[in-house]
């Protein structure tokens, strides 16, 4: 067993031991024209809008791995607390782990203060963590929720900058979704209007961006209730077969039939008991 030297006490967190090896491997594979396997990204359209009583968050459900769809129905709206939800774009593992970590931190914080957590707290925690890792954690997030001070919506970029806006979009389909928002957004909308607007924005992303697809998930957060509608709309429906292509027996006429027997002799028979305990 390898012995660790006496000089450094082991610490937790990220280990950079393999970085030199990885860069060496990448250089060698690059010479031969091959590439290292790509991380699974969510290549997404996510959007959020503030309406009269709260916040509506929307996301598509496709996860890509290079040029292949890795997950046709993944859930991109993550739970942060009972009144705060977060959509994630970028590297799927990064968004998943980041949101879970912040959800745990916020729960501990809420237990310590004894109050319902605020959206701005989650925002500060996320931006401080993402800035600490200087953008190497590829998580672009849309954070929305309702707390004692009202409804709030933030967008958080992988390097740690945040924006507080009434409507935000992120991901590869963000431009298509933002075009829909810019056209149709009005302040103080009703809930149904806001849901329809977000649905239209995500649909624009799904139809015009290759990295987004499948269904549209919606999450409506308001002071008294939380609606997590998955799926709200199935934008890309798989094609349905119109007919059966199986042939019935007797479709083809039989002209002649020739049966040849195979002579098989039992030479040896062994029985092996299987351990099913």
């Amino acid at each position: 067993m390898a012995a660790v030297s006496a000089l450094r006490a082991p610490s937790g967190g990220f280990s950079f031991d393999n970085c030199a090896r990885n860069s060496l491997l990448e250089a060698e594979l690059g010479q031969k024209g091959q590439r290292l396997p790509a991380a699974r990204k969510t290549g997404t359209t996510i959007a959020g809008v503030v309406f009269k009583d709260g916040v509506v968050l929307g996301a598509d459900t496709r996860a890509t791995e290079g040029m292949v769809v890795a997950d046709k129905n993944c859930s991109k709206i993550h739970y942060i607390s009972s009144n705060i939800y977060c959509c994630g774009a970028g590297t799927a593992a990064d968004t998943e782990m980041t949101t879970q970590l912040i959800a745990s931190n916020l729960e501990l914080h809420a237990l310590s203060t004894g109050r319902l957590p605020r959206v701005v707290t989650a925002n500060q925690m996320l931006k401080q963590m993402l800035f600490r890792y200087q953008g190497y954690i590829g998580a672009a997030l849309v954070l929305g929720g309702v707390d004692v001070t009202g409804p709030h919506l933030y967008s958080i970029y992988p390097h740690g900058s945040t924006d507080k806006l009434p409507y935000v979009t992120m991901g590869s389909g963000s431009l298509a979704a933002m075009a829909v928002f810019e056209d149709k957004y009005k302040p103080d909308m009703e809930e149904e209007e806001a849901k329809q607007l977000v649905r239209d924005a995500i649909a624009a992303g799904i139809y015009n961006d290759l990295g987004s697809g499948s269904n549209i998930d919606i999450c409506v957060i308001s002071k008294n209730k939380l609606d997590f509608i998955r799926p709200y709309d199935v934008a890309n429906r798989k094609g349905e077969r119109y007919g059966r292509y199986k042939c019935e027996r007797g479709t083809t006429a039989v002209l002649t039939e020739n049966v040849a027997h195979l002579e098989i002799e039992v030479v040896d028979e062994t029985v092996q008991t299987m351990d099913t305990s």
Partner: protein
Amino acid sequence: MKEAWFCYNNPYFVFQESRGAASLLKDSIPITDFSLPGSFEGHGLRRGFPCVKNELVPSHPLELSEKNFQLNQDKTNFAMLRNIQGLHAPLKLQMELRAVKQAQRLPFLHSSNMALDTLRGNDECIGFEDILNDPSQSEVMGEPHMMMEYKLGLL
């Protein structure tokens, strides 16, 4: 005091002795202490060929900042506290931290550092250092005799 009795009579509690005045001057982990320690058999795929340049320069831009992160946080916080409340505040806190850092298990065993975490406020936070590479679940351990000799300054 009950804690002092426990510390003196428990054979597994060792007070950390500083290795001379030099250790008091260091306020960050030395830059040369990078590569996976304790292996001089580094040829081949694991880390490429051993090379002095690789040892001096960090293999990832984040490596240095992550190593010193806790120290830098402490420095920033104490500087801010000094500016707001005066010199006595960080002095008292640093005295408490130093007192608590002295109660550790033997060097090759993992200490829980519970008092240290409480003082720093890490008992109410969770980060990557709690999830990834948990030192209490480490698959390798130090050579006990060597580590004790190094700590006592005999090596």
